[in-house]
């Protein structure tokens, strides 16, 4: 994506396109292998480790980083912070693609895609946390699709349908916040069932709260990060309003993320205190926990705060990458690194290269679809027919 030719109909054989094409080819071949040979053919999953990278990264990280949709639309439409309006559409698009790819990735792990609706029509299992996660993700994906649909409807010129969807904005935003609160926290609640498997430094009865609060931080950081990338590669697609509001979005979200990271650090300390886990800090696991807490929670908190104070946009943009990586690290620690920590190393899980390739394949699809949409539809600019219509 290093040049804009790829986005404006120039040569197809750019370095980005060629790398992306190679990833798609390899991913396609592994996809065939997975659905014909089963999980054993492409993964290192076992009875000890039934959830691997596809759950830890594609699902847990994917859902957390897609939180920008509900965070931004809630800030704009529920809290009335209209100065963030230009960030709503890109955030909704990122959220929609994120959730769509989460569901897509889940097929690789679960298999038998035709059974996806089973929880709703055959065997509900309504007492299961997984059912709640499944129901919320399905409903929220629908909500995001409807929220996002205004852009393609404007692009295709379906004015009446577009106006109808716009009238539903507030209801959809409220749905989005409710459903996100439910399933973001429930993803943490999934691990409450395994107190003996998850290392005590990461296990806490507050896991649902940690997942929910960190998802808001992830959403804000992702909006800043995605905005940074868009400014770099799709600058020519942005209209005046978008360019004018961009710094305000970065400063506002940077300030909120700093305060939230501080609060997140405090509730993590409370978790340590309540379970009396201080003595674990003096172990190797403790050192790794401190890397996460100091390097990827307190450091971005401080950098966001200093960046906000000094109105240093560049610093906030760079910090958003640290915060996003912190979320990735946290979710991978909980689902893979600190999970089954008591097992001998011979039984520990490390993803097969084909698992990593599929995760890369899915991220690449996301980037390509994002580029396709942003270069064609009114995401980073307002459609001329609907200027000042909101």
């Amino acid at each position, binding site marked *: 994506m290093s040049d804009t030719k790829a986005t404006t109909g120039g040569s197809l054989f750019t370095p980005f396109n060629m790398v992306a094409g190679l990833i798609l080819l390899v991913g396609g071949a592994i996809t065939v292998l997975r659905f014909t040979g089963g999980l054993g053919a492409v993964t290192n999953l076992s009875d000890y480790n039934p959830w691997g990278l596809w759950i830890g990264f594609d699902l847990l990280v994917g859902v957390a980083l897609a939180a920008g949709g509900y965070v931004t639309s809630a800030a704009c439409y529920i809290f009335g912070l209209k100065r963030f309006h230009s960030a709503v559409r890109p955030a909704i698009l990122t959220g929609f693609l994120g959730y769509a790819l989460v569901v897509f990735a889940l097929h690789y792990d679960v298999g038998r895609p035709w059974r996806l609706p089973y929880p709703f029509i055959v065997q509900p299992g309504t007492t299961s946390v997984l059912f709640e996660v499944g129901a919320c993700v399905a409903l929220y994906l629908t909500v995001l699709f409807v929220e996002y649909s205004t852009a393609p409807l404007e692009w295709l010129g379906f004015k009446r349908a577009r106006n109808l969807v716009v009238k539903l904005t507030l209801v959809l935003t409220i749905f989005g916040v409710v459903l996100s609160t439910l399933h973001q926290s429930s993803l943490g609640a999934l691990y409450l069932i395994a107190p003996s498997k998850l290392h005590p430094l990461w296990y806490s009865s507050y896991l649902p709260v940690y997942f929910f609060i960190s998802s808001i931080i992830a959403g804000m950081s992702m909006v800043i990060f995605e905005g940074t990338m868009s400014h770099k590669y799709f600058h020519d697609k942005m209209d005046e309003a978008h360019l004018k509001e961009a710094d305000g979005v970065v400063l506002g979200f940077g*300030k909120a993320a700093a305060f939230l990271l501080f*609060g997140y650090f*405090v509730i993590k*300390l409370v978790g340590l205190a*309540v379970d*009396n886990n201080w003595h674990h800090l003096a172990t190797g696991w403790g050192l790794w926990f401190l890397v996460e807490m100091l390097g990827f929670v307190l450091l971005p908190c401080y950098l966001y705060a200093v960046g*906000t*104070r*000094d109105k240093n946009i560049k610093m906030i943009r760079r910090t958003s990458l640290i915060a996003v990586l912190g979320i990735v690290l946290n979710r991978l620690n909980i689902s893979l690194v600190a999970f089954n920590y008591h097992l001998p190393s011979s039984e520990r899980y490390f993803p097969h290269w084909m698992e990593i390739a599929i995760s890369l394949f899915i991220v690449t699809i996301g980037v390509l679809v994002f580029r396709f949409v942003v270069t064609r539809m009114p995401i980073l600019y307002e459609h001329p027919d609907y200027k000042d219509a909101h």
Partner: protein
Amino acid sequence: MDGNIFTLQDFMFFTKAITYLVIVAALIAFPAFWLFLTDRDE
């Protein structure tokens, strides 16, 4: 301190005491951090 914990009562007393201290520290730190964040706002 861990060596002095024999009963659930001991455990709850110790952990609650530390938690309250963390919360008190947080209640002082939150406004201070907020002031640090916003004192240059116009």
